């Protein structure tokens, strides 16, 4: 039985448990969208603030994870709109040791946001096309075409 089902089956959701189970995924989603670890941490914080406030209204119609991803996409979009464009060249702070794929993060930042969302959900989080379509509110076929287009662009940017 998945963690999602375990949480939804209980009458009360434990916010700390929700955070523990889902914050790594939300962070990776935010990192794929923002392209910078510090930004991703800030977005993760805002996402969980929204999630914890909305949690009492969660009825379990969707998986908890996809419900949280949908919130994360909206929070990240709002966050990116508030932040001035910093350009694709921005890298993590110098001196900070990182195992992150910096070139890929910079390439992701050059993609249109819609393409980044598809990459984040399908290629990073491992959602099926229909699940990503449900989160994004677009047809599954569009997810497929956006994904192949995004991958082509990423390969171009990475090989440049």
């Amino acid at each position, binding site marked *: 039985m998945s963690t999602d089902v375990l949480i939804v089956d209980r009458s009360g959701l434990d916010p700390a448990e929700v955070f523990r189970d889902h914050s790594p995924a939300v962070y990776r989603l935010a990192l794929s969208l923002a392209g910078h*670890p510090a930004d991703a941490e800030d977005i993760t914080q805002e996402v969980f603030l929204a999630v914890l406030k909305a949690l009492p209204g*969660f009825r379990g119609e969707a998986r908890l994870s996809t419900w949280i991803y949908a919130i994360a996409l909206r929070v990240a979009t709002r966050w990116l709109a508030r932040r001035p464009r910093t350009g694709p060249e921005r890298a993590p702070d110098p001196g900070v040791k990182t*195992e992150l*794929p910096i070139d890929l993060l910079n390439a992701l930042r050059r993609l249109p946001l819609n393409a980044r969302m598809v990459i984040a959900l399908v290629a990073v989080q491992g959602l099926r096309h229909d699940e990503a379509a449900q989160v994004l509110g677009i047809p599954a076929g569009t997810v497929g075409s956006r994904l192949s287009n995004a991958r082509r662009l990423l390969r171009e940017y990475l090989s440049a």
Partner: protein
Amino acid sequence: MSDLREDVLDQELARLQNAELPDAAGVLRRVTSQASRHRRIATASLVGVAVAVFGTVVFTLRGDPFGYLALSGTAVVIVLMAWRHFRSAERLARLQGPAALEAWRAELTGDLRQGTQALIITGLFAGLTAFVVARHGLMPKSMLYIGTSVVLLWYALHQLLVRRPLLKRELDLLDEH
């Protein structure tokens, strides 16, 4: 054209799949602290509404229409602002499913109109404030009108000068291809 192989891209994406939130405990602590702050705002709003409602009743019993209008207006402003503040999370969580993107876009477009609406309401209330001040001078009741007008004006300007450009940018991001 790209000469980077698909499997190389997959390896890079796999590295991203292993990324860990560096300070999970710190993030949770900050989230909890912000959530507590929001609860305090909710409590303060409730107290404000209770005071305003009490004042409305008092002025109604005294048969003072301007006092009644001022206090009931204040109560409505507090309720609306608190409602907007707390509705934001609920709105974020509600939009899911096949029409989610269109619904999201429609909500943002609707929000764009709020600056103008707020400015119209501010103008009407400012007119009422000017009338009350001219009639009663700078009495406590007039100060209430002035205070409410200032809050409304601040809200309208914030909507027009801060929120509106952000909403437009958010819509642009959603439409990026």
